[in-house]
């Protein structure tokens, strides 16, 4: 099977259309960032509190909001995530509502208090089973000893109950319950759970209509530092790549590759800004992946240009670049197509947690492939033509110059 049979496309001839498209995309993204006063950073960079809550039935967002307001948590953001039947909600609080660094988790506590008021139970002597850890469950089981294990010695009994509690909580957390049960009787499916265990749990716990699945609290200092660090480390990585490509190819190739990668990151960030998506730490991981991918793609093309230059010193450089891109086109399309397939499946099936991550990759794979051809290669051509134009016997001399530093 073969998609492309020796294509002969004049890539350098149509480059301006695509450079214009790139400029337009970059301009749109940068304008959006300027209008929105910077990128929309997630809580991990901005500082604040995010709580991910699952409800047993469709939550009433307005009721939650007014309850949060009553807890003095104004300006909170509440959004549904996943498919509607998941009943999942993310509640975000900005740093300004959680000012004191002494009580970092103040915001979270207030959210839980508010939700308990709405979806919990008034009687406070019992614990909420849906928000209890295996440790808590195990402590209560040990105290009551519904299986009558005391004769077997404390250590063995404690271990049995710890394993049982873990199994119970795992059952509660597994699909389709995903962290919430609505009746203790459901637990009878767990091996080792008998009527006594269920009675003990019923006695000590109640079942609320919500479960806190995930909490993220970031203090002001960490957020700023992380942002700075992510930027510096990425720039350092790009610098290191530039030096390596300089060493293996030529400085102009290194500059071209770095400019192309920078272009990819800028446009991807632009999409995030245009679509109001948040930049989180996992998005940064995706951007790092994108940098690696785009660089890989560019080097493959450059490698072919280098090889062809060595074989054909007299060939017109523009023709040579076109030929190199055409020769690698089949591989470029295949690789990016397959990678796109893989990240698309992440985007479609990967779930909410990595949504931003996979979105960045879906955009990045397309941009990264395209930039090797329409950004990186034209820059190399541009450098070559400028060098050639500055000298009367420019052309042949530059080709000779080309061969020297490109060593194997």
């Amino acid at each position: 099977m073969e998609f492309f049979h020796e294509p002969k496309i004049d890539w350098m001839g149509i480059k301006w259309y695509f450079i214009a498209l790139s400029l337009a995309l970059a301009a749109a993204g940068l304008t959006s960032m300027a209008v929105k006063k910077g990128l929309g950073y997630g809580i991990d960079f901005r500082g604040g509190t995010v709580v991910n809550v699952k409800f047993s039935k469709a939550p009433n967002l307005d009721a939650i909001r007014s309850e949060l307001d009553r807890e003095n948590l104004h300006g909170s953001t509440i959004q549904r995530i996943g498919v509607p039947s998941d009943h999942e909600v993310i509640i975000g609080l900005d740093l300004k509502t959680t000012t004191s660094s002494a009580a970092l988790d103040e915001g979270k506590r207030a959210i839980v208090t508010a939700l308990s008021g709405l979806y919990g139970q008034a009687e406070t002597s019992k614990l909420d089973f849906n928000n209890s850890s295996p440790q808590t469950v195990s402590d209560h089981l040990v105290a009551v000893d519904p299986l009558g294990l005391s004769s077997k010695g404390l250590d063995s009994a404690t271990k049995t109950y710890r394993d049982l509690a873990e199994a119970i909580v795992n059952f509660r957390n597994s699909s389709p319950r995903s962290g919430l049960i609505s009746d203790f009787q459901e637990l009878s499916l767990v091996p080792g759970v008998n009527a006594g265990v269920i009675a003990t749990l019923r006695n000590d716990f109640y079942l609320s209509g919500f479960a806190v699945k995930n909490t993220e609290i970031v203090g002001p200092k960490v957020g700023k530092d992380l942002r700075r660090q992510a930027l510096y480390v990425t720039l350092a990585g790009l610098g290191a790549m530039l030096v390596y490509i300089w060493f293996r190819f030529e400085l102009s190739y290194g500059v071209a590759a770095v400019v192309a990668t920078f272009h990819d990151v800028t446009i991807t960030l632009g999409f995030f800004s245009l679509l109001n998506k948040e930049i989180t730490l996992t998005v940064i991981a995706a951007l790092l992946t994108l940098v690696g991918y785009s660089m890989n793609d560019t080097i493959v093309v450059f490698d072919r240009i280098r090889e062809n230059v060595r074989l054909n010193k007299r060939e017109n450089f523009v023709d040579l670049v076109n030929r190199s891109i055409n020769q690698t086109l089949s591989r470029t399309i295949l690789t990016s197509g397959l990678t796109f397939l893989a990240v698309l499946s992440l985007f479609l099936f990967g779930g909410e947690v990595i949504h931003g991550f996979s979105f960045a990759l879906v955009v990045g794979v397309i941009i990264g492939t395209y930039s090797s051809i329409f950004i990186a290669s034209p820059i190399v051509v541009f450098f070559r033509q400028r060098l050639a134009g500055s000298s009367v016997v420019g052309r042949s001399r530059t080709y000779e110059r080309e061969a020297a530093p490109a060593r194997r």
Partner: protein
Amino acid sequence: MKIKGRAIFIGVVMLACVLGIIGFPKNFQELKDNVRSRIHLGLDLKGGTHLVLQVQVEDAVNITADQALERLRDELKAKNVPYADVQKADDTQVQPPKHRILVKGVPQEKAADLQTLSTEQYSDWDLSRVPGDPTSWMLALKTTAAASIRNQALLQSMTTINNRIDQLGVMEATIAEYRQGDFELVVQLPGVDDPTRVKDIIQSTALLELKLVQDGPYASREAGLGAHGGVLPPDTQLLPGPTGQNGETWYVVNRVAAVTGRDLSGAEPSHDENGRPSVNFTLTRDGAARFGRVTGANVGKLLAIVLDNRVYDAPVINSQISDRGEITGPFTAQKVQDLALVLRSGALPASITYLQENTVGPSLGADSIRHGIIACIVGFVAVIGFMLVYYRGAGINADLALILNLIILVAAMGYIGAVLTLPGIAGVILTVGMGVDSNVLIFERIREELRLGKAVGAAVAGGFEHAFVTIIDTHVTTIVSAAILFTFGTGPIKGFAVTLTIGLVANLFTSVFVSRVIFDYVLSRREKGAELSI
């Protein structure tokens, strides 16, 4: 090397990797346990609490400076060096702050005595004249000394926190320096999804001091000061006590403690004679000797039990006490447990602030794993299926290389104990992408060589040879940047760099070496003149 030799080498590597993942299981359950214990999932995947905290190391330097100041006053008196004032004059404009003590009004003829004292007793401090004032001197804590105090405080905090978490019984908890130079620690608590209690326990300074009461209790701070005409007697301090039915209490106590938490040999939760929860402590031999001397000489006086600069109790010393004591207060049973725990684990040398807290509930962890696995399988099957359709026979080759690549990656991570996190999975994805790319590069090149009319053997050799240069360049470039990410990045960025580096090295092995061996094997079995399935 002959094909056989190379094939055996590959077999050995694969065997080591597979055993690295599954061990030697006797049954299915053991196999599951082995795999689970060898693949270390990060907290974001398996659930738990991740805390970033900062040790306020400047506290420890301040304490040292305060003690030096107290001692200096005493020494000057003992050596008959008159002075007008000794006070702290820290320079907080710079980062880190410079700790200084200003000594004013030392007669010029006594300057030599001060200099001798400084060289003999204050080797960590630099003594210099204050410009424009011949009677004033400045003692500045040396930068190296301050740095060593800070590092010491960090290490001691780490040990203390580690002890406390250990005693809480959190399994597989880790504590490590987060960003060097910032005195930040990262504490990972797998399975803990309500960190409130753990956080309180980590944070409590737990500085226990037993101090003699000079006078008191007073009903307010002002009353305490007023009883001494507004100025406390030297070497004493005014501390708040328990607030009871009669309101606040304040005690004037000795600044120097008779014994401190360092002299404890043990602390256990217990009950006092009224059945209220209390903490019983025992002292080391050295501490007991000192405690015995102090209590013996002060029978009838009050002894303040001070925890974190707050008087919890001030019982009368009825007789000489040597090696044990009891702390009572308005404690719950839980609080007494925790207090005994933190006393046993030692005091923190500096206070702690929390910078970040991330709790992943186990159900979210399970959900993201499930989604991740589904997505990976779908993506993987799509890629593998496509390679088979597009490259036919050679597709099997590529798919084998890809699967081996992942096995090596997982095994290597298990061997070095690396942790798989969400960003780490990003590294795996890039690895798979580049693995596919390597194979595509090679195959496309072989096709090209075939189109040029080369014989099958020569085409395969040429394809590998040409593609090898490209593959080396792409891989080294990415590994170089991953090395930078690993060196300078923290947490998530590091996780990405680790999987990426291992994956790419494995990929060089599988797509260049293993794939070539398979090709050579196929070629060796091929009938002369038959076409290559690619």
